[in-house]
């Protein structure tokens, strides 16, 4: 851990960068951000992403039961390369 003190400026910069990966980031100003708001939005967003992974895992599980993905290989790879 570096011995130099972390400035409020640096923390604000990190918070701005974090806010930039949240949804609707373009709607927000990049001036001083409220740490509380950014952290709150971040936690909510991560939780919703985790839920999406769970949900998509469930739906993929259904699809794997009913479709042979071997035959869909070419289509899958094509859409990923797009």
């Amino acid at each position, binding site marked *: *851990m*570096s011995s130099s003190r*972390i400035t409020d*400026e*640096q*923390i604000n*910069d*990190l*918070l701005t*960068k*974090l806010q*930039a*990966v*949240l949804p609707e980031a373009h709607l927000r100003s990049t001036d001083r951000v409220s*740490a*509380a708001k950014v*952290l*709150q939005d*971040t*936690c909510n*967003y*991560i*939780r919703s*992403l*985790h839920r*999406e*992974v*769970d949900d*998509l*895992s*469930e*739906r*993929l*599980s*259904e*699809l*794997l*039961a009913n*479709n*042979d*993905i*071997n035959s*869909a290989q070419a*289509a*899958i*790879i*094509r*859409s*990923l390369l797009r």
Partner: protein
Amino acid sequence: MESKSYTTGSRDNANRNLEGSKTLMASHFLRALFRIQQTSTTRSSFAGRRRRIRRAAYASMAYSAGTRRAWSRALLRKLRSRARLRFPRRLSRAARPQRGDTDQAQVLRKLVPGGPGMDYCKLLEETADYIRCLTTQVRLMQTVMDSISS
């Protein structure tokens, strides 16, 4: 060792890393899906298959970031120890109080792999990368799903 670049613009680097990571992520996840389908029998449970797919999702995220990130190292450790992947995790040991810590930062620590071991600045940095990776994985899963069901 990675340099501590808290303030320099590293977004270009982040984007470059992401492109290569996306390919790694996709190939790992697809291979896992094929394996899961091949080894699933009519008797294997829906829940079991769903769990394996979910684990494959987090594994492909972790492998794509490799050892470059604290969150991915923590995730790889968890995967290798075959521990249950649970978010938010239950903190078994008290996290060290950190400067700039709030209750909300503590909540965030439970949501990001390796969170409890990070100081506040590291937590913010790692979280941004973790979110980028998560959104990529979610988009990957949606793409796969769309192309299978079409």
